[in-house]
């Protein structure tokens, strides 16, 4: 009898323990790209005379619209070129959820490509914690093909911008991957058949309200629930009026920005959209991104802000007859200035606590090789932030998307930027603080002057927090 009882106890605790073990075990859906290689610690890989003591590389990538095929293929190629190395790829649409526990436990992947709005905050956290590896030496060293340093191959302005160099000290902590172009879109067929010319300035843009009415639509709509999309008009416009100086004020939290003429001009356009007859599509503020974009494609509005992913994102959406995507970027304020567009560069990082930063850097460099740029275009249908990449990708991407990239090549000036990190523990999220109240401006429940005062206070507080934080 006694014996049996003991067994029950053991059995029940075994059940409990195995349950616990199930929870504790690594959430590792990694796909070993190489089925055979099981590297021993002593074997060292060599390629081009380089030796790596640690030959295993753990890579975590975002699996979004681009899929994971590129990563699987490039990893295999890398392992072929660097015999003895082994790359484990973990891919997921919710990659941040998978890597977060590992980072917290001090055991991050060696290399991460993080994108998607659900995942990006983890990058922000790593920046705030100063937990990324300095990648400057990778970009200063010669590229895979040899010759000039790698940084000369990267799209101009990208490495210097905050999305690569978050602390503004010229050191690169985030390597650029694919880039997208964002701005205003219109129905090309409508403009061509009705002989409407694409607006070059915001005045011309606003003057189209009457034309819009004649064509049974309103002038403008945007992704109402997510006013952050308006940055695609706001940021290029700030640059267009006030140049880099104004943009720096804006992104670096200089409170004076909200008293400047630049602010008044740029937000003046938004206020006119809110108040002028037939300008803002009815109900816009309550629509989510899909609803607003569908309304635009059905011909309810003439313009909408969005990025190069637009066509792919809405490929199954209903549209008015003959609809064709046309891109104009953001109009300027005076006719002598060029149209502008905003670019958005996806990021790859090596965490500071990575076990194998040396091999990770080598892998990163490998991604910028010509072979890789082409492979990326073929498998992901995307364009790496490397000079000439649009032409390499031409045969794989849609014509209208290619045209957008080409327009950037041929004259549309691009801007790119991101907010400086706020102090650790700050309650402010700059993008939310700036764009969310625009809903109230559009509702005519907040004037631009009141809005400017509010933001002035917020920027002052953010500065104060940064100062206190620095003093510690």
């Amino acid at each position, binding site marked *: *009898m*006694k014996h049996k*009882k003991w067994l*029950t*106890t053991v059995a*029940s*605790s075994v*059940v*409990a323990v195995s*349950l*616990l073990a199930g929870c504790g075990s690594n959430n590792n859906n990694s796909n070993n790209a190489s089925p055979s290689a099981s590297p021993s610690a002593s074997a060292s890989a060599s390629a081009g005379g380089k030796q790596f003591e640690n030959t295993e590389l753990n890579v975590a990538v975002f699996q979004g619209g681009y899929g994971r095929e590129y990563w699987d293929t490039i990893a295999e190629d890398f392992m072929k070129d660097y015999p003895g190395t082994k790359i484990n790829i973990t891919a997921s649409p919710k990659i941040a959820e998978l890597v*977060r526990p590992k*980072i*917290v*436990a*001090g055991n991050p992947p060696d290399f991460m490509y993080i994108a998607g709005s659900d995942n990006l*905050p*983890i990058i*922000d*956290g*790593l920046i*705030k*914690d100063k*937990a990324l590896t300095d990648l400057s030496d990778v970009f200063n060293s010669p590229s895979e093909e040899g010759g000039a340093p790698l940084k000369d191959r990267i799209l101009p302005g990208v490495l210097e911008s905050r999305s690569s160099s978050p602390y503004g000290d010229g050191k690169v902590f985030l390597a650029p991957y694919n880039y997208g172009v964002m701005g205003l879109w219109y129905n090309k067929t409508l403009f061509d058949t009705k002989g409407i010319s694409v607006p070059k300035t915001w005045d011309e843009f606003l003057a189209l309200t009457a034309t819009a009415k004649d064509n049974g639509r309103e002038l403008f709509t945007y992704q*109402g*629930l*997510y*006013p952050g999309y308006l940055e695609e008009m706001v940021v290029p416009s700030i640059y267009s009026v006030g140049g880099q100086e104004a943009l720096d004020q804006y992104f670096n939290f200089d409170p004076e920005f909200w008293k400047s003429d630049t602010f008044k001009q740029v937000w003046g356009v938004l206020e006119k959209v809110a108040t002028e007859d037939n300008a803002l599509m*009815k*109900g*816009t*503020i*309550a*629509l*989510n991104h899909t*609803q607003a974009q569908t*309304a635009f494609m059905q011909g*309810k509005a003439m313009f909408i802000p969005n990025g190069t992913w637009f066509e792919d994102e809405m490929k199954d959406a209903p549209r008015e007859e003959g609809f064709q995507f046309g891109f104009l970027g953001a109009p300027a304020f005076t006719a002598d200035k060029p149209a502008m567009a905003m670019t958005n560069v996806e990021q790859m990082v090596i965490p500071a606590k990575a076990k194998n930063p040396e091999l990770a850097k080598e892998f990163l460099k490998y991604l910028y090789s010509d072979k890789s740029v082409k492979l990326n275009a073929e498998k992901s249908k995307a364009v790496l932030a490397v000079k000439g990449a649009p032409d390499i990708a031409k045969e794989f991407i849609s014509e209208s998307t290619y045209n957008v990239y080409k327009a950037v090549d041929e004259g549309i000036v691009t801007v790119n930027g991101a907010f400086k990190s706020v102090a*650790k*523990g*700050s*309650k402010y*999220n700059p993008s*939310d603080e700036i764009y*969310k*109240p*625009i*809903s*109230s401006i*559009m*509702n005519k*429940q*907040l004037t631009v002057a009141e809005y400017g005062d509010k933001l002035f206070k917020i920027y002052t507080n953010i500065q104060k927090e940064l100062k206190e934080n620095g003093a510690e």
Partner: protein
Amino acid sequence: MKMTMKTRRGFFIAACLIPGLILFFLFKVYPTIQIFHKSLYLWTGVGDKPKFIGLQNFVDMFHDDTFLLALRNTGFLMLVVPVLTLLIALINASLLTQTKLKEKGFYRTVFFFPSILSFVVVAILWSFIYHPTMGFVNAGLEMIGLGDWAMSWLGDQRTVLWALAVTLIWQAAGYYMVMYMAGIDSISPDLYEASGLDGATRVQQFFHITIPMLWEIIRVTIIFSINGVMTISFVIVSIMTAGGPDRHSEVVMTYLYSQAFTNSNFGYAMAIGVFIFIVSVSLALISNKLTERGSN
């Protein structure tokens, strides 16, 4: 040496309880303690060096305008939604049980239906009902000639909370109705019969028989409903309005989430969590106390 029957029984019970208890402590008690613990730290939720800052997070909370706005919105929903939900549920339940409707079973199913839909489905459904141009509400208003009243219900700060409240009530009323119906069915029909003979009207019966006999069930449902608003509002708000326009439908749960996961402010988010915990528990205690049947 033989164990007594009693010790053996004790061992057996312990053996059965231990796994459950371990799981309970590990997945319920331990995380709760962690929330209280982490609420005292400045922590991004990414790095591994939380910094102890005492009660600073709680102090900050009451200087944070967005949090206070979210709290006010949540308070509004917690006040309006349970009252209306339970009232509607009670009236429906009593109508369906007391009258001799032939379609009783049909109504019971129809009213209960929203409760078995997932919250996400409910939210998407209602965001199309409120759709400013092709939505059922505005189209309906136009059809009966009240086109001027049509507006974007979710896009205006004056109507957005009421619009969300209607969704929350629609979602929950059927569920509580079924609970009340079960309760009413267990009330002895003699009471109604006897009072009917004495000349009591339906309304009098409702107030003097149905409600007092259901009182214990009503007490429980009040607490369920208040806590339900807290959790369900997160899904409904995230999908239908994303807290907009301009944060006028932000609720504490969505604010907590955005502080933790988009602003990397885990410590602060945990402090909000602790605050919600305390508010929920005290509301439950208060409503329990207030609805206690005293000596009368």
